[in-house]
């Protein structure tokens, strides 16, 4: 089981001080938070992608993740989410494969459609095409990482003739992909079809949404022959605020909750805690609640928490990560491991994917001729000049 944090990079006024961080402060804080996550023993750091204020999550997460790869040693770097709708799948294939090389495989990524309506037209897209875009773009991305030379035609981008996405995936093994969706059965179906992971946001909405989507994904994962339903790869979000004493947690978190993006000025903190997985409480309460998720989604592989939302100052976020790393995650690690049956796999990592592929190999596509303008290897390759991955 992997434990980690995910951020959406919101630049939100701290309601207790009235102070709003600058973009640079928020960006540097994000780096500090990621480094702290590794320091306290978490396994995963995920960043969102944003193109509009009040967010400074990177427009291209690979920019931030490449930096983090250089300043961390061990933590898996991923996204929450990478927009599969408005990004060109060719750029995604190239950027994430490059990141995979830089980070020595210490990355994966999560696909999301994005729920900010105005973003779509900025990239020449229409939100009403959200699902078809996610389906077509990912089909192309999947192919670009698995076939050295791609001829392709679709509805949403220019056709490709004899195209090779470079660099080729590290060791000939594409990054593991999760698909995130709150309520769209089509995305659970997509994740199941490919045997990819499915991530349920699991915050802001009732747990019944997560349960319904995960059940569908598991059922269809088995249908498509990737293993039994309980072997499907599931990730969950969560949002917690932890203090040794639960009353203190609630008192300190309330002003942030009351003014937060998404749910602020709506239901009370108590209603939201009763109706969704949101929890302000003691370490023991967080442990019990998190173990309880397993009751409705089954044994799962990845737990990510949102810890730096709603204007919480960096100092508080770092304290929260200390509590998480010292008092919550070690207990959860032990408890979840004891509960998990042997046939349920862990979350795939680069090492496990390489092992499943029967070992890694260099997948470089060498273009034999014209190394100045980069003529297509489709035309120029010779058997001796290529050892690309064709699995």
């Amino acid at each position, binding site marked *: 089981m992997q434990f980690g944090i995910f951020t959406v990079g919101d630049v939100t006024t701290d309601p207790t001080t009235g102070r709003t961080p600058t973009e640079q402060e928020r960006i540097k804080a994000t780096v500090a938070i990621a480094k702290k996550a590794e320091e306290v023993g978490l396994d995963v750091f995920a960043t969102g992608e944003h193109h509009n204020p009040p967010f400074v999550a990177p427009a291209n997460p690979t920019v931030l993740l490449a930096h983090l790869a250089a300043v961390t040693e061990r933590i898996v770097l991923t996204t929450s989410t990478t927009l599969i709708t408005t990004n060109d799948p060719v750029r995604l294939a190239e950027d994430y494969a490059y990141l995979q090389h830089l980070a020595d495989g210490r990355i994966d990524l999560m696909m999301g459609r994005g729920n900010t309506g105005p973003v779509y037209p900025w990239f020449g897209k229409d939100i009403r095409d959200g699902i078809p875009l996610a389906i077509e773009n990912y*089909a192309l991305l999947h192919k670009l990482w698995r076939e050295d030379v791609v001829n392709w035609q679709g509805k949403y981008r220019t056709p490709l003739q004899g195209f090779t996405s470079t660099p080729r995936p590290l060791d000939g093994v594409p990054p593991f992909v999760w698909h995130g969706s709150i309520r769209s059965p089509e995305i659970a*179906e997509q994740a*199941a079809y490919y045997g990819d992971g499915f991530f349920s946001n699991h915050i802001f909405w009732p747990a019944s949404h997560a349960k319904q*989507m995960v059940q569908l994904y598991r059922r269809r994962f088995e249908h498509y022959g990737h293993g039994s339903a309980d072997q499907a790869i599931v990730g969950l979000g969560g949002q917690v605020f932890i203090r040794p004493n639960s009353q203190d947690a609630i008192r300190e978190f309330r002003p942030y909750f009351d003014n937060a993006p998404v749910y602020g000025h709506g239901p009370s903190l108590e209603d939201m805690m009763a109706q969704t997985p949101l929890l302000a409480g003691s370490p023991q309460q967080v442990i019990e609640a998190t173990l309880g998720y397993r009751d409705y989604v089954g044994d799962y592989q990845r737990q990510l928490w949102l810890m730096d939302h709603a204007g919480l100052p960096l100092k508080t976020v770092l304290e929260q990560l200390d509590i998480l790393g010292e008092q919550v995650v070690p207990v959860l690690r032990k408890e979840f491991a004891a509960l998990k049956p042997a046939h349920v796999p862990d979350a795939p990592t680069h090492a496990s994917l390489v092992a499943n592929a029967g070992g890694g190999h260099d997948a470089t596509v060498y273009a034999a001729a014209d190394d100045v303008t980069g003529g297509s290897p489709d035309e120029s390759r010779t058997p001796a000049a290529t050892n690309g991955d064709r699995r």
Partner: protein
Amino acid sequence: MTTRIAVITAGITDPSSTRLLADRLTESVVRALGGHDVAVDLIEVREVAHDVTNNVLTGFASPELQERLDAIVAADALIVSTPIYSASYSGLFKMLIDVLPKDALRGKPVLLGATGGTARHSLAIDHALRPLFAYLGALVAPVAVFAASEDWGSIEAGRLGSRIDRAGADFVRIVAGAPAPRATDPFEDITPFEALLADASRA
């Protein structure tokens, strides 16, 4: 088989003439259904006013509101009764309609009722309520009932009773002839991936 009727009433006082009209319309419909087994779910919007606001803000219903939304979705027929404010249905009434699941009222027989301080508001049913339910794809009954203040306490009250009876009798003919289509469950009736892929790339 039981005929399930959901009744939405958006009056805010107690007692409320909007609720009174809802009750009278319901009685009339139940009577006109004769021997049928009828189950009525009454939804007082006021009781879930905060929940409806929260649903608009958060995108999900509280358990109390969800129970009421489920009753509306499951109903074979719907009776609505709203006060007319500023020439239209009340804002609270519209917010409840706004948080119904997509297509919840498609093909569902709906009987319209409204109340107002004066009969001069009576066309609000046709200018405001009818287009709303037409947009939602409901089978809206041609005969609707508007009850103005003067209808309740005068000789007109008798006519109100006969208008209610006529509306109920006509509505039952629609209900009997057009059972509401069953909602499909998008988590059960899924589109297989190959079909999604083929649809996505259809130029």
